[in-house]
Every structure is written in structure tokens, then in C-alpha cells.
């Protein structure tokens, strides 16, 4: 049907609507007409393209999931042992309390805040991994902060921070500078300058360690300065900690920013994920913590969080929570976990060093030190969007078009190919 005919049909339709005085939408399958094809975020899109690529040399550096040197997923031994114990205990499948598996909640609190911290002032609920924690936290803030509250996300950040904020219905979503792309370093002055302009109770999302996508974290001194501004301007920090133990292999070290905030008695939210550090991606296990100035607000906060959970999915899944609880409660399993974390984060570190060295040996123009120095799973290579596109199209090396690579996709078999491919796109900008 040509456009003119369509308009005519639509006009007749509208006239009928007026004449009959009621919505004829249902005759036109109204339920479906309003549904337009939806656009997925870039991580999923790039991963899909990689899946469809038939090239035998293809490499994916897209997704933040750990791979062994043999390109296999890694099942933590402590997780397997914990599962065996669970199977032997013949646990029932009864509903968990709405706020989560209680031993898990205790363990999650201790892991974040340390053994010596007074956790009476912390309201904690189990969540559906980090995404669920951010979603629940933002939902709470949406409900209990004034509607004009501003929400500040670092630029760049994990794309889902924006998707979740949108899903929750937040309107005042802004960014603050984070990354200096000329120096490939933290834009510390930019962060400070922006935070100093914010109104009290503005929500500031911060990555507790292993910033995604840049891999660039503030130093302890820089964190102290940020905390001072947060206190001075009465801002509300929301720390997203998705890589505790995975960044440096050391739980305490990776939680040092969070603990600095806690020591300064700053009220804050912490989203915690066990997807990466326990390899429990698909079991969706995480937690949301509210550190409060006084114990008296903990119960009301918990009660409201429980209502939000109850009206979203009633209660949390048991399996992942029980695994983490078992590991944390058992000295042997906990030590095993720490060892395994050192191994996996060590492999990542090794790949960073080697890639950096190989680019140096190839004499690829530019300084590639940052690949070695950045922290965690990801590296912001500094490659331009067109260089990234060429990396994908010509060499079948997949990464995000902002230059983020997941180091986990690199191994001793493909590292030379990756280095040569990067070298090629840098020295030959034209195709």
C-alpha cells in the first residue's frame, strides 16, 4: 500500500473512531502496533556479531567474562566443593526470607566492610547480582529522594548504568568527567570540578575498583580527595563494586575505597556482585548495602527494600547465595577462593604485561603502558572508533567501539595475533 493509500485508510479509521465513539484499536491488534523493534545495548550487539562470524581466527574481547588460557569458562573449585556439600546436606527448597539467605547476607557484609566494622549500621539485602543491586538501589532512591534529584554517572561507564536508570524511570541522569583520553588517564581535575558544582543529596555513582570500561582507578590519595568533596557537598555516593578480589587478587585491597568512605562515616549505597569474583555469573548473586549514620534507620530501609523485592520477584534465588555463604563460612574453602582469585587475576595481569610488551616490540606507535597499568578485566586501549571497526572487519578481533577490550579474551595462543592486528590498525588507518 503506498503512503497516500495508507493515509486514506488511516483517515477513514479515525473517522470511524469518532463516529463510533470508542477505541477501535483492538480491531487493529492494538497490543502489537505500539511495540516497535527495540535496540539492544552495544555489549550484546557486538557479542552477537562475534557469534555469527565464521572466521577461524576470530577473537572476542567483548564480554567481561573470565576465560582460561584454553579459552574455557572457569568453574571455581571452591564453588564446586561448596555445591557438593550442599548436595550432601539435602537442603530443602523452601522460600528464602525476602531479604535473602541470612548467612549469605552476613558474609556479604563482612566481605565489603571488613571483619572489624560495626555492621549494625548497614542495611543489606540479597540481590540479583550487580545489575539487580543497582536496579534496586536506584529504585529506592527514585522513591525516597526528591524528584529533582540529579544522578551522576561517570563518563564513560558500564552502559547498563544508563539502561537501568532509564528502566527505573529516573529523569535527571547526567555524567561527570572521568577519563582523559589524551593522557589515557584519570581526569581527576574534571571529577573534582564537577562534583564541587553538585547540589546536596545528588547521587554520584562511583566504581569502587577496576573501573569499567577504562580500568583506571583513583589512587588512595585521590579517593581521599573525592571523599572530602562528597562530605563537603553532602553528596550521596553509590559505589558499584563488581570486581572485589578480582581486580588485584586481594579482597581487602579492592575494597579499600569503600572502606575509606565507611571510615569517614559517609552514608552511601554499595552494589556488590559475585558474578566475576566467584565465577557465579549465571546464578545472579549479589547484594545491596546501605551504610547509614544511625542504626535506627536500618529497619525502615530494610522494610522498604523488602517491599520492592516482594513486588518485583517475591524473594531471591537460593543456589548462588548458599554457595557464597558456604565458602565464606568455611576457612578451607575461603582460603581456596582467595588462592584461585590470585591465579585468575594473575593471568589477567600477565596478559596485560605481555600485550603491552609485544606492542612495544612491534614498535606500534603510541605509548602502551596503560594496558599494563590499568586494573581489572578491561582495558581502554585508546583505539579510535574507526580503528576498532577495522579491527573487527579486517582482523575479526571484536571489541567495543569505544576501544574497550576485555583482557580475559586474551591468551597465549592468540596474543600475537591480537598484537599484530592492533599494530596494523594503528599504522594503517586507511583500510
Amino acid at each position: 500500500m503506498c503512503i497516500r493509500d495508507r493515509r486514506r485508510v488511516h483517515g477513514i479509521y479515525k473517522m470511524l473512531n469518532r463516529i463510533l465513539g470508542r477505541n477501535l484499536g483492538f480491531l487493529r491488534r492494538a497490543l502489537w502496533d505500539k511495540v516497535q523493534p527495540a535496540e539492544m545495548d552495544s555489549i550484546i550487539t557486538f557479542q552477537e556479531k562475534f557469534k555469527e562470524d565464521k572466521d577461524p581466527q576470530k577473537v572476542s574481547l567483548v564480554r567481561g567474562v573470565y576465560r582460561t588460557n584454553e579459552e574455557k569458562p572457569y568453574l571455581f573449585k571452591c564453588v564446586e566443593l561448596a555445591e557438593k556439600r550442599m548436595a550432601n546436606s539435602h537442603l530443602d527448597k523452601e522460600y528464602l526470607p525476602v531479604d535473602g539467605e541470612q548467612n549469605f547476607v552476613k558474609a556479604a557484609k563482612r566481605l565489603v566492610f571488613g571483619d572489624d566494622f560495626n555492621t549494625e549500621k548497614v542495611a543489606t539485602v540479597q540481590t540479583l547480582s550487580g545489575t539487580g543491586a543497582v536496579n534496586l538501589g536506584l529504585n529506592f532512591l527514585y522513591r525516597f529522594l526528591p524528584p529533582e534529584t540529579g544522578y551522576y554517572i561517570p563518563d564513560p561507564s558500564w552502559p547498563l548504568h544508563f539502561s537501568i536508570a532509564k528502566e527505573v524511570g529516573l529523569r535527571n541522569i547526567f555524567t561527570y568527567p572521568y577519563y582523559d583520553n589524551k593522557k589515557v588517564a584519570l581526569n581527576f581535575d574534571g571529577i573534582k570540578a564537577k562534583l564541587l558544582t553538585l547540589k546536596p543529596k545528588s547521587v554520584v555513582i562511583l566504581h569502587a575498583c577496576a573501573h569499567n570500561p577504562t580500568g583506571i582507578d583513583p589512587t588512595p590519595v585521590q579517593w581521599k580527595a573525592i571523599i572530602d568533596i562528597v562530605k563537603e557537598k553532602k553528596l550521596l555516593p553509590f559505589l558499584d563494586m563488581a570486581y572485589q578480589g578480582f581486580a588485584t587478587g586481594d579482597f581487602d585491597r579492592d575494597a579499600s575505597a569503600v572502606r575509606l568512605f565507611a571510615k569517614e562515616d559517609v552514608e552511601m549505597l554499595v552494589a556488590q556482585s559475585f558474578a566475576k569474583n566467584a565465577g557465579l555469573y549465571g546464578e545472579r548473586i549479589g547484594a545491596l548495602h546501605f551504610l547509614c549514620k544511625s542504626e535506627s534507620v536500618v529497619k525502615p530501609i530494610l522494610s522498604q527494600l523488602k517491599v520492592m523485592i516482594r513486588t518485583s520477584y517475591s524473594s531471591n534465588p537460593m543456589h548462588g547465595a548458599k554457595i557464597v555463604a558456604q565458602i565464606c563460612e568455611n576457612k578451607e574453602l575461603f582460603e581456596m577462593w582467595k588462592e584461585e582469585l590470585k591465579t585468575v587475576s594473575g593471568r589477567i595481569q600477565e596478559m596485560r604485561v605481555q600485550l603491552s610488551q609485544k606492542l612495544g616490540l612491534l614498535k606500534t606507535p603510541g605509548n602502551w603502558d596503560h594496558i599494563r597499568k590499568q586494573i581489572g578485566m578491561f582495558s581502554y586501549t585508546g583505539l579510535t572508533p574507526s580503528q576498532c571497526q577495522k579491527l573487527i572487519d579486517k582482523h575479526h578481533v571484536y571489541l567495543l567501539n569505544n576501544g574497550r577490550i576485555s583482557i580475559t579474551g586474551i591468551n597465549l595462543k592468540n596474543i600475537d595475533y591480537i598484537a599484530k592486528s592492533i599494530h596494523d590498525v594503528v599504522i594503517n588507518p586507511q583500510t
Partner: protein
Amino acid sequence: MGIQLLRMKSSWDSVALAPPDQIFHLNQLYLEDKSTSKISLVIGAYRDDDGKPYVFKIVRKVEEEMMKDHLNKEYLQMEGDADFRAGAKKLVFGDDPKLLERIVTVQALSGTGALRLGGTFLSYAAPKGAKIYISDPTWPNHMLVFKQSGLTNQAFYPYYDAAKNALNFDGMMGELSKAEPGSIVLLHGCAHNPTGIDPTKEQWKEIVTLCKKKGLIPFIDLAYQGFATGSLENDAFAVRLFVAEGLNIVVAQSFAKNAGLYNERVGAFHVVCPDVEIAKKVFSNIQIDIRGMYSNPPAHGARIIGRILKTPAYFEEWKEELKSVSERIQKMRKLLFDELIALKTPGVWDHILHQIGMFSYTGLTEAQCTWMKEKHHVYLLKSGRASMAGINTKNVKYLANAIHDAVANNPKKQQAP
């Protein structure tokens, strides 16, 4: 006063203490009750004849097998485990591939998660401001879940005839006849919660005809398939009737009860679409909804169900177990009924026999329920809803006596003319 001054001012001082969920709260009181003869008929969770939680044998078997397979813990797709989705879809809708290919199925966080996804989907896909009609009474969480998902325009249709302890079919049809086209109707696919009263097959046919005539969007909550009558096929009758009559419905499906996987949060949300092209669009939208809520669903429970549904021998074992648990419930209904008759408890108690599924709307008044709790340590909702799963051969006499005592001491007030 001094202590008040010392306490630091919190950003959260104005956060009010939310009222506890009535069902969980009542169950908590039960848990804290020290009486040795206490009985809980509160939560819709199956118990065996010893009053113990029950894990399906087939579930244990499959879990052991999964352990030996050393499965990894990779992210599922946003839409969930593939085997699970295929199996869950067939379970509800049958085997016709032409039909199945135009049904969007996504894994959800049990029934509640499916309802939430459904509410979210309808909040942007249904006509703007569309009203959702919910039965009076219903599971209390329905209203809250839909409100949170954006379906804030809510109305109720009569469902329960208290005097006859039966379905108020005329009332229901009368109210739904007044609905605007594009309105959503929430229906319980089988084993209505809390009443246990379902429409007959003939009545379902009339409901379907009405929905077609009025252009209503049926939203079916299927939380007890296989658990209601013991037959998965029978319990899917209503859903399949809607689809056979050409209606494009949405369905929230739970495996909490029928596979005893309460805490693994296994469910699915289905959208029956007019064609494959529309199904693709709908699917992509729901994927985004999921991504923004929790990225992707938990794997463990879905993998268990996926395996059961795709392995014929396991599927048969599951069906057998389902039959036996639903038969135990039916036996308990009969035992309780017999006891009340033997005690000559005032009132008519046939409804206990005829109601379907886990719950019975006993007809007990709030005063009678309170009496039972305080004098006999028997816990049930103040609406009179009792979970029959909490009854067993060891406690049924005690229960019957408690009911008898409550009724004798708290006669029902006569309705004002």
C-alpha cells in the same frame, strides 16, 4: 533527648517503616509459636504427611546428574535457558509448531517475576491507561506487583459468592461486560488463589467469548499447572481454550509449586502473538526490560526443569510425583471434611471437598480465624484461606476440633437484609 542530639542526622530519617507482608508476617508468628501442636496453613508451600518440606525426588536426581556434568556458570541469555524455554512453552500450549513459533517465551523469576514482566510489557504495549481487571478476592501481591510495573489503573470483578461459597459467575461476567476494549483481565488459569474455586469448562467458554467480543486482553496467571487436578493437560485447559479461539493472551507461569522449586525462582512469561514478525518485535522489547532489571535470570532452577521437560523418562517421573502430591492434598480435604461431619460442626463444608488446588476458602470468619490462632495455635489467613498442604493424617483431627471450637464460640453474624 541528649541521645537524640548525639545521633547524626541521616538522609533516611524520613523513610517510614513499611507494613510487613501479611502472609510472611503471620508465618513468622507461627514460627515463633512455642506450642507443640501448632499448625500452619498459611503459606502455599507443600508439606508431606509428616509436615515436612518436600523436595521432588526427580529434582534431587537431576541435581545430582547436573553436578556430575560439571556445568559451568556462564550467563544465560536475557531470555533464559533454551531447553527450559522450549519445554515450558510446550507444557502450557501443547505441541503445534505453527502455534509455538509465534509465542514469545522468556524465563522469569518464578510466577511473581513473570507477572512483573507481564505488567511492564502491558504498561507500554496495551492502550495507554488501560485498566486491569483483577478478581475479588485474589492473591494480595497481584495489585502491588502491577502497580509497581506501571499498571496503576486497577479495578476488580466479583468472583466469590460468600453465601453459596461458590463462583459468582454472573457478577464476574456482568462487570467484565462493562470493560472498555483493550482492558486487561487477570485470570487464574487453574486452582484460583485464595478461593480454590475455578470456572467450569462451560463457564470458561463463556469467558473466552466475552473477551473476544469485548476486545479484552486476557492475562493468565498459571501457578498450579499439574498441581490442581494432578494432570498437566487438564490444568492447561483454560489457557489452551483462549488460544484455540484465536485470542492473543499473555501468561505468567510458575514452577514453584508444581516442581517444589520455591526458592530457585523458576518461571516463564509468555506472549501469544498474531505472527512471527510481531513475535520478534515483542521479544526484543522484553529482552530490554529484563536487561534493565537484572540482566539475565538465574540458571540453576531453570536447568533442572529444562532437563526434566526434555527427557521423556524424567518427565514421566515428574508427572507421577505431581499426581501423588496433588492426591495427598485431595485426601486431606476428604479427611478434614469427614472429621467436621463427624463432629457435626455447624455449617456446610462441602466446599472443602470441591475446591481445587492448594487452598481452601474455608468460609471461616476473621473472628473464628483469630480464635483458632490464639486458642489452638492454628494459623490461617484472616480471610479464611487455608493451605490444605499443611494438613496431614497426624494433625487433621486436632484441626477439625479447632475449627469446631472456633465456629461454636464465634457464630457468624447474620447479614443485614
